[in-house]
C-alpha cells in the first residue's frame, strides 16, 4: 500500500527573542534585539499509510505539536520535505484542506458566539456539501456522538466533554481522510476519555481514515495506536509498535506474591531465586518484585514450590513507566 504521508529530514527552527535581566538590557534590546534559534524538529523522517492510527509521543517541548502543525499546513518547514497525498501541506491548496481535519484539545475551533448547529451549517457551506448529503451526515454524527440535545446551544455553555463531541462532529462533517488530533482528551474525565476513544476507534474502522494523535494520556495511546512515533528534543527516537518499545526499554516483569501466613522476608526470597531481583515494595503479607523476563518462569516455579502463597500475579511494567524512563533518560531505541 502506498504511503499517504511521506516526511523526510523535516526540520523546524524557531527564532526566539532573548534578553538579559535589567533595565539596561531592556533598552539594548530595543536597538539591537538578540535572537536564539530553537530547533523544534530536527531532521525527522517517517511514512504513514492509509487508515493507520499513529501516536506521536514525547515529553513537553519535544516537537510533536510542531510536527503535527507542519503536517496540517499551519507551519512552514525550515528544511526537509513533507508530502501528504502528494500535496505540500504548507501550500494549503483547497483540495488538500478538504481532505484533512485538525482538533486541538487546548483550543476550541467552534465559534463561541453561534450555536453548534450554526457551526455545522457554516462548515457545510465552506466545504460545499450538498443539502441531502449534509442531512445524512449530520444525522449519522448526531447519533454516533449523541449530541442531539447540544445542537441549539452555544459552545460556551457546554461542558468540556460536550464541546469535544461537537468539535468532532464539525471536524468530521466533510469526511476528511486524515484527522490530526492534538491532545484531544486534554482535561476530560475518564468516562468522557473512554467514550471519545471508542468513537475514534469505531470511526477509523468504519471510514478508513488515518488518525495521527499526540497525547500525554497513556490510555489514548494504548487503546488507539498500533504504532507510535517517539520524538524527543526534535529528534525521532523510535518508530514502531508500542509493545516492542515496552519490551526493548523495560525487559522486566513485576511479580506480586501474597503469603498465606507469616511472610518470608525479601532477603530469603532473593537468596532462593538466585537471579537479579529488585524489591519494589513490601506491604504486610505481600511483596512486589522486579525480575528479568527470561527468569520469570523459573522464579515462579521456585516461589510456588517453596512458599505457601495465597496469590501470585505477573504483570508487565506500566506503559507510563516505559515513557517515564524515555522522557527522563532520553534512551535511544
Amino acid at each position, binding site marked *: 500500500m502506498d504511503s499517504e504521508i511521506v516526511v523526510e529530514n523535516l526540520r523546524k527552527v524557531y527564532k526566539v527573542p532573548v534578553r538579559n535581566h535589567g533595565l539596561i538590557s531592556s533598552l539594548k534590546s530595543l536597538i539591537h534585539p538578540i535572537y536564539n534559534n530553537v530547533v523544534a524538529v530536527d531532521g525527522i523522517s517517517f511514512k504513514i499509510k492509509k487508515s493507520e492510527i499513529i501516536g506521536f509521543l514525547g515529553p513537553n517541548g519535544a516537537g510533536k505539536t510542531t510536527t503535527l502543525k507542519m503536517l496540517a499546513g499551519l507551519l*512552514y518547514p525550515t528544511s526537509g520535505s513533507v508530502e501528504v497525498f502528494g500535496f505540500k501541506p504548507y501550500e494549503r491548496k483547497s483540495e488538500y484542506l478538504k481532505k484533512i481535519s485538525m482538533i486541538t484539545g487546548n*483550543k476550541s*475551533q467552534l465559534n463561541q*458566539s*453561534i450555536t453548534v448547529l450554526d457551526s455545522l*451549517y457554516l462548515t457545510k457551506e*465552506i*466545504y*460545499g456539501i450538498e443539502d441531502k448529503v449534509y442531512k445524512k451526515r449530520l444525522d449519522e454524527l448526531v447519533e454516533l456522538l449523541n449530541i442531539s440535545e447540544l445542537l441549539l446551544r452555544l459552545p460556551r455553555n457546554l461542558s468540556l466533554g460536550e464541546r469535544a463531541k461537537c468539535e468532532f462532529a464539525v471536524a468530521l462533517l466533510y469526511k476528511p481522510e486524515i484527522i490530526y488530533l492534538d491532545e484531544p482528551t486534554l482535561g476530560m474525565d475518564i468516562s468522557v476519555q473512554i467514550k471519545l476513544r471508542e468513537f475514534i476507534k469505531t470511526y477509523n474502522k468504519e471510514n478508513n481514515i488515518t488518525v495521527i494523535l499526540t497525547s500525554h494520556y497513556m490510555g489514548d495511546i494504548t487503546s488507539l495506536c498500533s504504532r507510535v512515533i517517539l520524538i524527543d528534543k526534535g529528534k525521532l527516537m523510535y518508530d514502531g509498535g508500542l509493545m516492542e518499545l515496552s519490551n526493548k526499554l523495560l525487559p522486566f516483569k513485576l511479580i506480586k506474591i501474597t503469603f498465606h501466613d507469616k511472610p518470608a522476608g525479601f532477603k530469603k526470597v532473593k537468596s532462593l531465586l538466585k537471579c537479579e531481583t529488585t524489591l519494589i515494595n513490601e506491604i504486610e503479607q505481600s511483596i512486589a518484585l522486579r525480575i528479568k523476563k527470561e527468569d520469570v518462569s523459573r522464579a515462579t516455579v521456585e516461589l510456588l514450590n517453596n512458599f505457601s502463597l495465597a496469590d501470585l500475579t505477573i504483570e508487565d511494567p506500566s506503559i507510563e513507566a516505559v515513557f517515564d524512563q524515555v522522557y527522563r533518560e532520553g534512551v535511544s531505541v
Partner: protein
Amino acid sequence: MNFRGGIALIKKSLFSYMASKGFFWTLTLGWMLLPLIYMLVWIVASENSSISGFNQSDFISYYTIMIFVNQITYPISHWTVGDSIFNGTFATWLLRPLPPIYEPIAADIAMKIACLPFIVIFISVIVLLFGFSIRLTVINLIFFILCLILAQLLRFIFAYTISLMALVTNKINSLLSVNDLLVFLFAGQVIPTVLLPGFVKIIAVFLPFRYMLGFPIELVTGKLGMAMIVQGIILQVLWLSVVIITNKIVWKKCIKRYASVGQ
C-alpha cells in the same frame, strides 16, 4: 471564489454580532460621535464668516456625509485579525479551504449590515437638528460611488496588511494606533484636507489616507473641480495597487514565519 463559504461567513458574523449587539452598537456610536464633535467645533468656528470657502452649511454637509463614509470604510477587522493571530483562532482560518482574508471581509460586511439601522437613525436625527443641503449632480454621484468603493478597498487592505504583521510581531496594536492617528490627521477627519495649511496639504494630497475617507466627501460636496477629481482617482488607484502588492509581499514573507502560537 467560494461564494457559498463567503456568504455563510457573513451570516456567521451577523449571528455573532446579534449575540453581543449592545457592545457593537456602543462601538458604532463612538465612531459616529467623533465626526459629530468635529462638526460642532467647525460650526462654531465658521459662525461669522466662511473659512477658505467652507461655510456652516458646508461643514454640516461634510461631517454628516463623513459619519456615513466613515462607517462604510472603517475596517473593524484590522483589530480582530491581530487578536485572532494572538489567540490562535487564525489557525482555524488557515485550515479551511478558503483564503483567510474571507473572514475579515465577512466580518466587515456583517458589521456594516448590523450597524446600518443605527447609522440611518443617527444621521436622520442630525439632519433634523442641523439641516442638510448639497448640490448633487449625476456625474458627482457616479464618481462618489466609485471613489467610495475604492476608499473602502484601500482602507481595508491597508489595515489588513498592517494587521498581518501580527504573524511575526506582537507589537501590532501600536502600529494600528499609528495608522488610526494618521487617518485622523491626514484623511480629513479633524479638518477637511482642502483646508490644511501649506506643505501639510501637499503631504496629505500625496499620502494614501485622504483617499480612504476625505476625498469622496470633498467630491460629493462639490469642493473639487474635474481636474482634481481625476487626479484624486488616479492617486486612489495608484495607492490601492501599491497596497495590494505590499499585502501580497507581507503575506508571503510573514506566513512563512508564523509560529501558530495559542493553537
